């Protein structure tokens, strides 16, 4: 599996990597991008099987990334990992086709539960 982490915070990307290891997904290939625009390039380059994206990012936010991928016909599952977690945002994410929504901070158990369906 190839996993793309998209977050403008370097520390948060590191934390997600750590949580992936703790959740038992440490053996997979993990790539990183700082924003949605950069992520589109990484998607072209690595064809990830799963994208974990922050919501609020400069240049291109997570929702714009999801919409851009969807408009190109991408079927790569994208889940949000974000500190902004209002019910309205969750609804918007789901309506736009997001696969899951995780609020920061999260434990490796929460990440494991969210990602398990994609690793069957």
């Amino acid at each position, binding site marked *: 599996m190839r996993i793309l982490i998209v977050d403008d915070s370097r520390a948060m990307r590191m934390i997600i990597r750590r949580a992936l290891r703790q959740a038992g997904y440490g053996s997979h290939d993990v790539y990183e991008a700082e924003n949605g625009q950069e992520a589109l390039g990484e998607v072209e380059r690595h064809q990830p099987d799963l994208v974990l994206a922050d919501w609020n990012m400069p240049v291109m936010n997570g929702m714009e990334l999801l919409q851009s991928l969807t408009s190109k016909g991408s079927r790569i599952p994208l889940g949000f990992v974000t*500190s902004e977690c209002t*019910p309205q945002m969750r609804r918007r994410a789901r309506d736009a086709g997001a696969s*899951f929504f*995780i609020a*920061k*901070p999260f434990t490796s*158990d929460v990440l494991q539960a969210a990602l398990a369906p994609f690793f069957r």
Partner: protein
Amino acid sequence: MSAVAYSPLNDLPGPYEVGNMFRILMGRTVSAKTRPGSPSTVSGTDQVAVYVDDQGEIMAICLCSVGLAAAVGAALSMLSPQMADEASARSELPETMRENHYEVMNISARFFNSPYSPHVRLQAVHQVDQGLPAPLRTALGRLGAWSQLDIEVEDYGTGTMLLAHIGQTMAQPTAENEELRAYTRAAIAAEVVLATPDGDMVMGMARDLSIRGAYITCDQVLDMGAACTLLLFAPLADGQRKVKVGAQVVRLDGQGLAVRFTMVSEEAQATIGELVMMKASDPDKVAQEIRLL
């Protein structure tokens, strides 16, 4: 049964919630204790995080001593503890530490968000002696309910944190399911996963918990009356414990949903009872409710 009076005062997190969130973020031991007395005088090197509502109105602040900001900023990305010490001594945060502290303050917005209050988000973090915008200076003179903590980040140092609402707005509870209201509800912040028999899965945050049900902020994708399995990550004193119960959605509102527990094992009931007693203002009443179950 009289309604629970929600207010910013009892919505603010205590030492356990703050320490637990920092522990999850930093992956190391973080201890937090209530600091007795009035809020400390603001020092020039303190870092003030400003939280605003959707109209840009300042609703809350989180003020960290530079020592705590350095400890948090260094621990988040595992910089050396020595770097935190040096930054604290110089009263100046290097860029990475400043970015990391900002991220922690960004996530800390959840301390001020509840189903009963306006949505707030982090607007900015300022160092006091580098100049504060006029609206923030005014806001600092109008502190409402507050919680002040001494926090120690393992290996990285200590400092103080002041969480405060601005002004004294009292939020009102929404209409509740009367059966659930009959049980003592404790304010908590615990991750949950709701899974329906058809495979739909919803992540959420349990905001209050009784021995018979919970209120959860989450996406409202479950139907009224839907049966589900609820997985609760219970933040207990000795660490996090997973609890799985059968549940049914009994109320939906604009912020989330309330569930009634329908199938609870003895072990799960004991864990839920332990958590409610730990968080409730009247543990004796909870103990009585458990005996009468």
